[in-house]
């Protein structure tokens, strides 16, 4: 595939105007045209999209198949949920804790989450520290590929099981729910629900802008180079571990932010939202949209979320088959996702003679690079 080299500024303008259009759609058009129910659902998809943007960075650009983003989603979500639970409970111990041990005080690790400032800081700091330690340990030991994928998935399963089994401390399998307030705002008020939605949508736009900057920076180039030829990057004098670590930490941060916003929008967080199946569903959206493209992961995650809400309700059995087929068909025939379709059609038109689909090269993944 011949690669034209348009002026970077032109590309930049195209990407920026894309983001701007997306922002207008999400922040202005959607609240005006959608019902409360669907706006809230869109908010939920935005949370998954935020996590998906991070997965796009780590997996699409960095080649790290992060199958355990649920872990970081959980850190943000549970930090937020603990704060909102305490805000609702006031001075009392949350209701679900009472039965198992009526006299015991609030677990010590809950106490700091009374503070709004601490909670917000935790949503940012916890995933960065956790991903930092985990990433450092794994990348320095050159754990990669399938090993990395399975390990991260195992972590998500372990965390979900741990939360399920610590019922008094975390709410267990039932999770945390029934939040009345969001940093002083009454959550039942539709106007406040719109506000929460807008925060999530705005955060998604911020994340898109951030990765757009990442991708066009020198770091972005190094990350892609590491994905495609880690050894060569090493020979060039860079430490691939550090490059991967930064991408991994940023993707963890995004998952955490998505998780944190998920809580006030959906009103409940449970271990099932962070376990193996949930983590894989996050990957599904990214694969569907286009893992290495700028908008692909976010749009893919939103499409999968929408499919789950709408097809899942009209045709529940069918939805599971569709989701399964989606994985098979997209990965098999369209590894760079739906966002690569225009470029592929263009390529087919240019080379009609070439019948069999050529194997997907790394360069092709970059087809839709912003």
């Amino acid at each position, binding site marked *: 595939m011949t690669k034209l080299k348009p002026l970077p500024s032109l590309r930049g303008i195209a990407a920026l105007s894309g983001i701007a259009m997306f922002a207008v759609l999400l922040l202005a058009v959607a609240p005006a045209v959608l019902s409360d*129910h669907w706006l809230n659902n869109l908010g939920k998809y935005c949370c998954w999209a935020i996590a998906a943007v991070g997965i796009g960075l780590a997996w699409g650009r960095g080649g790290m198949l992060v199958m355990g983003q649920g872990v970081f989603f959980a850190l943000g979500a549970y930090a937020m949920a603990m704060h909102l639970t305490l805000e609702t409970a006031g001075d009392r111990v949350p209701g679900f804790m009472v039965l198992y041990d009526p006299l015991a005080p609030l677990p010590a690790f809950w106490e700091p989450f009374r503070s709004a400032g601490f909670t917000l800081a935790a949503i940012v700091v916890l995933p960065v520290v956790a991903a930092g330690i985990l990433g450092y340990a794994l990348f320095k030991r050159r754990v990669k590929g399938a090993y990395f994928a399975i390990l991260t998935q195992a972590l998500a399963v372990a965390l979900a099981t741990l939360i*399920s089994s610590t019922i008094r401390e975390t709410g267990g*399998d039932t999770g945390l729910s029934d939040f009345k307030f969001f940093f002083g705002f009454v959550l*039942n008020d539709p106007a406040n629900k719109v506000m929460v939605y807008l925060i999530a949508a705005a955060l998604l736009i911020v994340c898109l802008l951030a990765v757009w900057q990442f991708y066009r*920076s020198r770091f972005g180039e190094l990350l892609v180079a590491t994905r495609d030829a880690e050894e060569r990057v090493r020979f060039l004098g860079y430490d691939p571990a550090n490059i991967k670590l930064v991408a991994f930490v940023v993707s963890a941060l995004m998952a955490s932010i998505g998780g944190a916003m998920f809580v006030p929008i959906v009103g409940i967080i*449970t271990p099932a939202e962070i376990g193996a199946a949930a983590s894989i569903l996050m990957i599904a959206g990214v694969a569907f949209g286009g893992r290495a493209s700028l908008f692909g992961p976010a749009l893919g995650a939103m499409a999968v979320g929408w499919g789950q809400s709408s097809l899942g*309700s009209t045709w529940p059995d069918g939805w599971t088959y569709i989701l399964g087929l989606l994985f098979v068909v997209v990965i098999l025939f369209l590894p760079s996702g739906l966002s690569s379709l225009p470029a592929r059609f263009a390529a087919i038109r240019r080379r009609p003679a070439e019948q069999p689909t050529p194997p997907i090269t790394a360069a092709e993944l970059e087809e839709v690079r912003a």
Partner: protein
Amino acid sequence: MLTTNKRMRASVAIGAIGTTMALVLAGCGARAGDDTSTAGASAAASCVDTSGSTIKLGFLNSLTGGMAISEKTVSNVLHMAADEINTSGGILGKKIQYVQEDGATDWPTFAEKTEKLLTQDCVAAIFGGWTSSSRKAVKPVVEKLNGLFFYPVQYEGLESSPNIYYTGATTNQQIIPAMDFLASKGVKTLFLAGSDYVFPRTANAIIKLYAAKLGIKIVGEEYVPLDKDDWTSQVAKIVAAKPDFIFNTINGSSNVGFVKAYYDAGLTPAKTPIISVSIAEEEAPAMGHEVTGNYASWNYFQSLKTDTNPKFIQSWKAYPNSSGVTSDPMEAAYISLYLYKSLVEAAGSFDVNAVNAAAKSHTITFDAPEGKVTLDGKNHHISKPGHIGQINANNQFDIVWSSDKFIEPDPYLEAYDWFPADIRKQLVGAAG
């Protein structure tokens, strides 16, 4: 390595400004200190359409995912009840038009679908759910939107809501009869085995309190995650503890693993019987002969001899998608739709407040397959008979013990002095 440049700072700034703007634009909602009664009311305006010849009801069960194993039958029996009611003239002359939703074994999905059913489909009431977690996810939503939810499965009690009707057993209708049965058999030591989630944990907390009163010693308490079948290590502990009886609050497929490990370890119903609260006619066949001879505590068994039971069994056997056997949760789901019909007809309206008022002012009864049940208008539970059945070789239950009368529902165990008043007070406070 990370090159922060001006552009990056600029774009982050744009984002920050956007977020702030969003906050300012929308920051007109109610705050914590405001009078929230008006804020909530705008969302609660009902959109139920009662003008036509049909009435929309929502059915919400997991049709996919892990819990579909159990919930599919409840969903099917709801369809059967709806068909029956429609054939006999509907509710207030209106045919039921149901909207089926899939909870997908995911509690947030239960919450989302509840909201969808109430605000998008405008259903008059929702029926379904299975796990306590799904009910706890639905509860805040129906309370916020002032909807109605009919929950058909036995549960751990300690809950009541103006927006939920419970047609399954609460603790004093299933757990406490089971303990009374054990006491009558002279049981001295008991082992608690459960899945690791809210129902077994809460049920066991109550069992421990009552056991202390009855003088039964708890010699062990074990939990295994819902999605794990392997119980061998835990069963080794049971063997070592040598209890007179095992109280089983395991749910789902994990029960199969438990019963097999129990049988493998040489434990037998003759020496160390199990009493379960989640194994019914539906579940027993999947366990094979290893489960035969053990006990279960329910309010309904297929083998129950009442006037109405044969018709229920017959209709179900003739129904498409039928599994051929009837069970307690199915029967409770069947009751829930008929109970709603009686409530609406007593109220003369589908309005939620009118229905709740009718529950208080009228005596609502239904000739259920388990016998004539009466609704308690205050706590929204129904009276039920307590039965203990022993599993026979045909995976049916031989009834070996029954309560002498229908047991009035008492979700907060107010009539039981062994239940600490301070816990009750805190729980009622937390619920309200």
